[in-house]
């Protein structure tokens, strides 16, 4: 027993264990969200979805996972084997690395670095390279076009997304995600979407710009996770399945997992920037280390729900409409907001 405790107290072992906490969260969250997405989709379309496995099909995701684990792992003969195997892991590493700076609760954050949100933007660029690698290594035209579309879309929507983040950083004066959250503590009236914890005049002046930045970031984050209405990279009628057409079994499952993890990640960024992160909406009521984790996951999941809701409601954009929205609508509005916020914060 003492040996085990001594082993657990080794700094290296503690570090590894702490780094695994988000992984456990992602695995559980992915199972819940797969069920959630199918059920929400079905009810939006007036269907029932899974009803056979367990009560209302609650153990269906576990059955799906077992099926994926048993599946044959096919590597096409003409594929570039090394890159083909490496690509899904690279995509997942890029997403998982971003969870390091996510403030899950007032007591838990992987790495409380001062450049938190800047790091998040940089880590997501690994994903783009992974997608291009998958598309190229598959040696398949559909995969290739899917990967190119996906990369082009992520790179161009990064611009309005990062400009929106810049606006928020200008308001807070810090890039540390834990500090950002703490600055919005004290109840729903202090959240940045309502103008933040500032004097009344400044708050009223900030409110419209914060709302615009929120919409801009929400749209660009949806484009970054390749979900409808921005799911051109996996347009079934044109591209079969996009960059992961050739992937099967566990490798496909890892892409799937990375996609869902990314979905929570962008929702969590929205929550940290505009909706108070882990802070309780009722001030000091129901706040604390455990409660704050509860609020963080609840807020994050409500944005995941919003994404699912939009996915099953809206049709897909055309590629020229996609570029029009990014370059001619979101980017000018974001630039305008940044200038306005600069003046408000100085005055």
């Amino acid at each position: 027993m003492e040996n085990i405790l001594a082993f657990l107290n080794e700094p290296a072992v503690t570090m590894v264990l702490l780094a695994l906490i988000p992984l456990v969260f992602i695995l559980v969250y992915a199972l819940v969200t797969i069920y959630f997405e199918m059920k929400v989709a079905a009810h939006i379309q007036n269907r029932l979805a899974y009803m056979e496995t367990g009560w209302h099909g609650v153990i269906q995701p576990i059955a799906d996972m077992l099926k994926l684990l048993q599946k044959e792992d096919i590597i096409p003969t003409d594929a570039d084997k090394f890159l083909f195997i490496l690509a899904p892991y690279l995509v997942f590493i890029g997403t998982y690395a971003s969870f390091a700076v996510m403030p899950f609760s007032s007591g838990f954050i992987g790495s409380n670095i001062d450049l938190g949100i800047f790091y998040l933007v940089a880590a997501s660029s690994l994903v783009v390279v992974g997608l291009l690698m998958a598309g190229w290594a598959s040696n398949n035209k559909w995969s290739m076009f899917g990967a190119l579309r996906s990369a082009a879309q992520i790179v161009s929507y990064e611009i309005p997304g990062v400009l929106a983040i810049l606006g928020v950083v200008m308001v807070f004066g810090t890039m540390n995600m834990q500090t950002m959250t703490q600055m919005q503590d004290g109840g729903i009236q202090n959240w940045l979407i309502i103008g933040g914890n500032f004097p009344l005049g400044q708050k009223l002046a900030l409110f419209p710009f914060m709302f615009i930045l929120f919409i801009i970031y929400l749209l660009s984050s949806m484009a970054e996770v390749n979900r409808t209405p921005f799911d051109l990279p996996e347009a079934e009628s044109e591209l079969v399945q996009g960059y992961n057409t050739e992937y099967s079994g566990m490798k496909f499952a890892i892409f799937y997992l990375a996609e869902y993890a990314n979905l929570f990640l962008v929702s969590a960024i929205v929550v940290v920037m505009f909706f108070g992160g882990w802070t309780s909406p009722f001030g000091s009521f129901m706040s604390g280390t455990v409660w704050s984790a509860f609020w963080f996951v609840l807020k994050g999941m409500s944005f995941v729900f919003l994404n699912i809701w939009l996915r099953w409601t809206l049709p897909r954009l055309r590629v020229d409409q996609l570029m029009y929205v990014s370059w001619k609508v979101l980017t000018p509005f974001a630039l305008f907001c940044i200038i306005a916020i600069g003046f408000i914060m100085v005055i």
Partner: protein
Amino acid sequence: MNMYEIIFYFFAFITVASASVVVFSRNIIYAAFSLLFTFFGVAGIYVLLNADFLAITQLLIYVGGILVLLLFGVMLTTNTVNIDIKSGSMNVLAAASVVAALAGLLGGVFWTSDWFVSKQMGELPAQTTSKEIGTALITTHVLPFEIASVILLVAIVGAAMMARREGIKSQIPSSK
């Protein structure tokens, strides 16, 4: 060997190994992708030197921007995906002399520099450098900063000019 040294040698190994793949690989796609690991290793070494802002900027600019641009270039300039693009060697003599001169210069700098190597490097308090960099950029180094911004503006205006194609007979039909 303490933790700090192990991590340093890990990043150094990644950087050197992937950089040699970039140089020696005959397959240009492998060379392009292994640049990713070179940039990552260099970013890791920056982190160990307490240059956090520089490390993240390195990842953002080189991996998110330049490497993606490079991959697009390689992938779009080939007509088929089946033929491997190879890189060959030419102008061996000229290249060898330039490389020898550069290596001599770097070696000279390496031997004559006063290296700041602290035993307590790993134990230095982690502090952010972004505030100091920001302050330095708009006070001491404001002129280079502004010149860089003007150059970027010129590049953006130039790109917009080339993309407009107004009054130019274009081969590509307009998408509108």
